[in-house]
């Protein structure tokens, strides 16, 4: 199995995630899209790790997972806090700094 195929799949998933961040309004779905982008980069890391015959890529993917877990915990706590104060999970409603 060629590395190029995995990289193409990774690029496609990353693109879908990036488009999701731009298109969706629900903060939770935006977070899921960010997770999809992180997973896509993990796939690229693992593919390169096998292509080069070294495990450093897998260690990098492992660290990405750790950081993603921390990011999700804090991000979802922020979403819950915003939802409590303004009863909405839409990113358009959190626009107080605009005015």
């Amino acid at each position, binding site marked *: *199995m*060629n*590395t*190029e*195929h*995995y990289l193409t*799949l990774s*690029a*496609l*998933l990353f*693109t*879908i*995630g*990036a*488009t*999701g961040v*731009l*298109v969706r*309004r*629900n903060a*939770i*779905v935006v*977070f*899921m899209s960010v*997770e*999809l982008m992180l*997973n896509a980069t*993990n796939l690229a890391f*693992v593919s390169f*790790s*096998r*292509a080069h*015959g*070294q*495990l*450093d890529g*897998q*260690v990098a*993917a*492992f*660290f990405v*997972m*750790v950081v*993603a*877990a*921390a*990011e*999700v*915990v*804090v991000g*979802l*706590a*922020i*979403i*819950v*806090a915003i*939802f409590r104060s303004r009863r909405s*999970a*839409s990113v*358009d409603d959190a626009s107080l700094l605009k005015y």
Partner: protein
Amino acid sequence: MIAFWVLAPLMVVAALGMVLVRKAVHSALLLAVVMVSLAVLYAAQEAPFLFAVQIIVYTGAILMLFLFVLMLVGVDSSDSVVETIPGQRLAATAVGLLFGLLLVLGVAQATLSASVGLGEANADGNVDALATLLFGRYILAFEITSALLITAAMGAMVLAHRERLSPKQRQSDFAAQRMRDYAESGKHPGPLPVPGVYARHNAVDTPALLPDGSPSSISVSRSLQSRGLVRTSSPTDVERTTAELDAALDPDAPSAGHVERGSGR
């Protein structure tokens, strides 16, 4: 090989569905499909440790967290169709398509040497080799990760914590409030009547009957009333119930003529 060609289209379709479906719960489930498929691809690429971590951490922990928050925020909070910036959705899709084209073309242009494979690096087992790296060359990053995790846990606790703005109501406070209501508005201080008292059925949707035979509206749940599921009762229910009870207790007695006894069953 086969795993890739089966899973890759599935993953792309599931990822597209995740972005396109309106309900957030469906998005979360489609993301689970992508993540489990990704775990299988890790296993196919000689990364068994990451396969397990992907399933345990991502599908097990992170997605469950997503689902918890979705249930907390409200399952039916779907996106609004109104665009805040006009044409933003179209422009974002165009940018996404161009970006994807750029990435795929870039990957296609690159010439990569033949894949070396991890047979040599994984000679002692994947987990052992990763542990040697993690606690050797990457020990500093690993230690800093612990600080990150503790900070994240503290941050989540601080963000999700809610200060109590009013003192907690205790049982004596509730009792005093009930007596105050009774003194001021005459509201009955005791518990509400249970459904079905003196009625022909004791189901929750049957209102209790007052001594004059009229149904008591406070005896059935308000949500049942708003849904229109309350069973109707007629003023003759008391007499019919009395007759039925008497017939059951005393088979010899006539089944009619108990009207004068009223509801004193």
